[in-house]
Structures are given as structure tokens and as C-alpha cells.
């Protein structure tokens, strides 16, 4: 146990004190603080000014109608009749030219924010519709009938029979809560970032000891498996340390800055899936890191020269990239067959299961099954890595196949 601690601390401290660790952590912390202030940053570059009063150039009837419609559209703008002069400050002038089709002209001094422009467009669209109804001389009920859309429902026997989960997901694309999407994206991106970064670090730790031959001195003092476990645990702890720094940065950012603007501007409100998603995201993030670091250690054990390391780690890069893409590109397409299947394939599980946790149709059992799959896979990979490491620790053979052949021979 003492020797485990010695190797663990030596690796952990040297990695946490490394420049690469400090710099990459600082960059992400900086990004977190920037993201927390994204609304203020946007407003820095936004020269538009909100319109407070809109002057309508037309008859009294037009002014009343516009006022009613603007109120119905829940805008903050006051509608008043135009009394000559140019638009200035937070006042804009709306002139109506009653031709076919209707043309509206809005003049303002400054740029109008996009949100307000949308509101004006909606209100004026309604204005056009009302005018059309009047001109065509039809009742509002008739007008409503014209605007009706048909209801089409698909009743497919095969999917109705299927037990539970995927049937519901396939026929419709669910609305995603923006906050949940952000939690998912951040999880997957951070997981990918940490995996790529630490996979090569743990691989190079192991390969460096073998290529520099210091390993022979080490394993004459400590059992190779104890040593490997200490290395893997230390690297996982380093990555979790980094993750903790990120989480602390998020908490500090929440304490420091006023988030109300951000929440209202981007509609970031939690729903009843948010807590579940957050918990499973964190769980899968940690399990994903452990699995990929164990795989990297396994692959690093095959290598005895640093030059061969990148090649040996290729599977880690490929697998994590596939998982990452499956997660990212299916965020809005719901639980399709690809998502359902890949969520049970261990290297992809940590990327895809959080996506499924975003959907109400996914039961707890599915998510827990994913956790179980991950734990079993991690145990298997660690056992395999130990046995390979033990057998190849003093070998100077290069290449995976040569090492496997040699291990079989012994």
C-alpha cells in the first residue's frame, strides 16, 4: 500500500505541477467566466437601441389598430400618432402604404434589436391579416377555417407492439430544454477534451518508463500491477482534479455574476429532467474518463518506444471521436435507433447515455444499465491491462502484434 502511495503521489504531484496542466485548466476557467458573461459581452458589441415609442403615420383607425395589435403581441412599445418630424432617439416612425401587398416602412435613428424587429414583424403580419379579412368581407370564423392545418397521425402496428422505450421516441422530435442541451454539450465536450488530453499523457507516462528502462529498477521494488494501478489512479485523480476546478469555477461564476439576464435572454430555465440529466452526466463523465484512461494504459503497455505511442493510441482517438459525434449530431434528432444501440456499446455509452437522459421517454433502468455496462467494462479493461503490463514490462519488442505473440509464447 505504501508503494502504491509513493507512485501515486509522485505521478499526481508531478502532473498537477506540470505547465500543461496549469495552462489548460486556466484556459477553460477563463472560458467559463466568459460564458457566464456572454450577454454582457454581446451587448458590448451590440450598437442597437430598443425602441420605446413608435409613431404611426396614418389615420386614427390605423393608430388604434396598431396599438391593439402591439399590445396583443406583448411589446413594450408605446404606440402614438405621428405628428411630423424625423425619427430620433428611441422613437421610430411607422408609415403604412395601403397597396397590395401592404408595405410598411419603419424609420429609426439607431439599429433596432433583433428581438424587437421580430415582434414588430409579427404584429404587422397580424395587421395585414385583419385588413385582408375586412377587405374580403368574411367573418373571423371563416378566416380561421381558411388558416386551419390538417391533423395527421401515423398508427403503425409494428412500433405500437414494441415494448416501451424506442417506440415513443421515433415518431416525433421532442422539444429540448435549452439548459439541458447546454449541460449535455458541456459534458460531452469536456469529456472529449479530457480524454484526448489524458489518454496521451497516461500512454506516454507508461511508454516513457519503458523506453527509458527505468521500469526495471521500479519493478524490482514494487509489483508491476501495483505500479500500473497507482499510475492509472493518479492520472484519473489528476483529470478529476481538473474537472473539480472547472466545477468550482462554474459555482464561483454563478455566485459572482447576475444570471437573470442570461437566463431570460436564452430561455435557460430548468425543467424536471435537469437534475436527473446533471447527475447522470457527471456520473458518465467520470466513468467515461476512467474507461478511456484504462484503455490508454492498456495500449501504452504495448509500446516500448515513444515514437510508437501515437499510433498505439489511435483507437482511443477514433472511439472517442465516434462517440462524441454520435452524441453531438443526434442531440436534436431524439432517440433514434443509432442512439439506442450505441448507448449500450461501452466506448460510446458515456457520450450517448447523457443524451438519452435528456429525454423523458428514457427510463431509469436504461440509464442504470449503462452505468453497469461501464463498470463491468472498466473492470475487464483494467484486468487485461494488468496482465499485459506484467508480461510486457521488460520487453523491448515494438508493436502490438509482436508483444501479443511474445506474451502467448511465454
Amino acid at each position, binding site marked *: 500500500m505504501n508503494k502504491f502511495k509513493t507512485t501515486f503521489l509522485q505521478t499526481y504531484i508531478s502532473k498537477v505541477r506540470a505547465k500543461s496542466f496549469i495552462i489548460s485548466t486556466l484556459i477553460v476557467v477563463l472560458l467559463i467566466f466568459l460564458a457566464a458573461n456572454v450577454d454582457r459581452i454581446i451587448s458590448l458589441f451590440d450598437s442597437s437601441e430598443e425602441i420605446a415609442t413608435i409613431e404611426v403615420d396614418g389615420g386614427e383607425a390605423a393608430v388604434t389598430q396598431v396599438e391593439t395589435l402591439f399590445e396583443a403581441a406583448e411589446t413594450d412599445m408605446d404606440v402614438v400618432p405621428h405628428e411630423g418630424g424625423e425619427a430620433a432617439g428611441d422613437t421610430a416612425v411607422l408609415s403604412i402604404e395601403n397597396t397590395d401587398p401592404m408595405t410598411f416602412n419603419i424609420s429609426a435613428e439607431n439599429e433596432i434589436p433583433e428581438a424587437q424587429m421580430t415582434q414588430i414583424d409579427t404584429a404587422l403580419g397580424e395587421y395585414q391579416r385583419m385588413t385582408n379579412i375586412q377587405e374580403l368581407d368574411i367573418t373571423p370564423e371563416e378566416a380561421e377555417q381558411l388558416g386551419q392545418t390538417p391533423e395527421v397521425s401515423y398508427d403503425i402496428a409494428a412500433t405500437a407492439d414494441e415494448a416501451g422505450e424506442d417506440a415513443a421516441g421515433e415518431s416525433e422530435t421532442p422539444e429540448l430544454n435549452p439548459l439541458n442541451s447546454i449541460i449535455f454539450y458541456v459534458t460531452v465536450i469536456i469529456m472529449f477534451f479530457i480524454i484526448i488530453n489524458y489518454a496521451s499523457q497516461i500512454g506516454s507516462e507508461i511508454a*516513457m*518508463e519503458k523506453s527509458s*528502462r527505468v*521500469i526495471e*529498477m521500479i519493478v524490482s521494488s514494487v*509489483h508491476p500491477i501495483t505500479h500500473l494501478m497507482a499510475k492509472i489512479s493518479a492520472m484519473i485523480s489528476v483529470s478529476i482534479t481538473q474537472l473539480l476546478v472547472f466545477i468550482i469555477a462554474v459555482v464561483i461564476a454563478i455566485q459572482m455574476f447576475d444570471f437573470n439576464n442570461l437566463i431570460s435572454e436564452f430561455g435557460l430555465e430548468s425543467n424536471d429532467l435537469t437534475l436527473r440529466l446533471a447527475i447522470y452526466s457527471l456520473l458518465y463523465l467520470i466513468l467515461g474518463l476512467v474507461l478511456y484512461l484504462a484503455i490508454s494504459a492498456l495500449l501504452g503497455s504495448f509500446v516500448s518506444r515513444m515514437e510508437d505511442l501515437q499510433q498505439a493510441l489511435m483507437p482511443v482517438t477514433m472511439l472517442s471521436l465516434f462517440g462524441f459525434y454520435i452524441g453531438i449530431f443526434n442531440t436534436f434528432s431524439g432517440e433514434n435507433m443509432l442512439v439506442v444501440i450505441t448507448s449500450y456499446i461501452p466506448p460510446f455509452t458515456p457520450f450517448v447515455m447523457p443524451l438519452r437522459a435528456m429525454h423523458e421517454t428514457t427510463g431509469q433502468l436504461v440509464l442504470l444499465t449503462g452505468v453497469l455496462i461501464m463498470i463491468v467494462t472498466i473492470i475487464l479493461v483494467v484486468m487485461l491491462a494488468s496482465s499485459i503490463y506484467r508480461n510486457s514490462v521488460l520487453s523491448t519488442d515494438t508493436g502490438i502484434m509482436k508483444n501479443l505473440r511474445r506474451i502467448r509464447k511465454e
Partner: protein
Amino acid sequence: MSLELNNLTKRFGGNTAVDDINLTVPSGSMYGFLGGNGAGKTTTFRMILGLLEQTEGSITYENQTINYNVTNRIGYLPEERGLHPKLKVEEQIKYLGELKGMNKNDISDKLDHWLERFEVPENRNKRIEKLSKGNQQKIQLIASIIHQPELIILDEPFSGLDPVNVEILKKAVKELNREGATIIFSTHRMEHVEEMCEELCILNHGQQVVSGNIDQIKSDFGQKEIIIEGDHDVAFLKDMPGVIDMKQVRSKTTLKISEEQYAEQIYNEITSLGYFKRFQVKEPSLNDIFIAKVGRQYEQV
């Protein structure tokens, strides 16, 4: 209180690297493993340390098999040199020392002592990769002896060093032995074994050519060498009984005899001729023993 190898054999696939070695390393002795490349020295050491599993046979140290419970009492300098290139000397020694169960303060004191001893105190805070090869080797030797092991295994400790540093290291190794440590070292240089060891084992292609106490081996070997220097014609000695071989270079004649008892007769023959500058009966060299046992010249690689 000793290390015993019984019928030790190691095969890699169809290749036998170590073939049925039997030997005893007495406690407190200085034991030499002599052999060229591929003789099986490193494989034997790795089996002693438990880094490789033997195919057959047994290894016991103080009547126990060697496992990770006793490794703290053993020091090992591998043939393939290497340390963590990015670590400083102090960090490296502290890490390896702690793996041997030492505490940080002890390591620091001992490190000062050994750096002074090896005349490299200025390297304490340098990165390993910045050191010359010879200095790296000194640091690695410090790493393998800093925990005062009772059994020290040194695989080719003197290879790659200049003569001055070889002397410094030899002196240190001898001192460790005097202080009670059992030392096993391998070399391909016969003179190192002749100079330092009481016991040895000569390996050739995995096979044990000869082993045991050097004086005993030489005396058991029987053959002796006689060196004669003088101006008289001694060519007739070639036909004397017991003479196996004779070489003449100018006035110096070297005879090989099968038993020491024939020396007296030869002495009597030449003294009847008159004055000789030299008549000396010498023990055979390890090289002679090797040639006699293996049937060819010892390969020095």
C-alpha cells in the same frame, strides 16, 4: 544465510536462455558472473529478482523464495540503464528510495553522502537528461544502493565508464562488501572478477561452465603455467612428461603442465644447465580455464 539457485532453467519458446544452473552465493561474499553477450547473466538476475519466472528449478534467499516482501532488502542495478529523464536527481532518488521503504530525510542524508563519494555533488538539482552518461550511471548506482541493501545485484556496473570512474565505483563496491553486503555482479571483463571476487560463475550460452571459489577452481583445475627466462636452449622441455604446451618468445618460455608435481623435475633439468633469470610456477588464468572447459577462446565483446 545465502542465495541458492537449483536447476535453474529459462526457456523462451524453443530457445534456452539459461540451462540448469546450480550455485550458492555465500552470505557476505563478492560473487562474479562472467560471460559474453547472450550468456544468460541478465536473465539469471531477472529470475533471482522475480521479474521473470523460471521455467524450471528454484531460487531461495535465506531459505525463502524471493518476492516483494524481501525486495526492500535487495538492491538492483539493471544492465539497461535508464532513469526518468525529466526528473531532477534528487526527485528521482527520493522516488526510488521511497519505493524501497525509506523516509525522505534518510534519503536526503544518504544522497549527500553518495554524491560526495562519487564526486558529483553539483548534480543534485540537475535534470537527469542534462547529465552525461557516466554521471547518469553513478546516479543509478546510488539509487540501487541508497537503502543499504543486504544483497546487491549489479548487472555490468562498470561498462561504459572511463578508467577513473571505474576505480571510484570499484572502491565503493568493495567497501559495501566490507560493510557486510552480499554482492553479485556480472561483467564480461575477466580482470574485474579476478581482482574483486572470491567466488564466480562462468556462463557460456546459458550453460554454467564452472562455478565456486576462485582459488579452489584454480587449484582443482590442476594445470599450472611455468615461466622460464634465460639464455640457454630449453626446446627439449617440450618432450618432458606433463608438459601440454610450450611457447617461446625470444628468451622467455611459457610451459603449460597438467599437474604441479611435474614442475620440480623441470626445475631440476634447467638448473643443471646453468643460470636462469626467472623460474616461476603460476596459477592458471580464468582465460585458460575457460579455454580448457569450452574448447575455444573466451569472447570479450
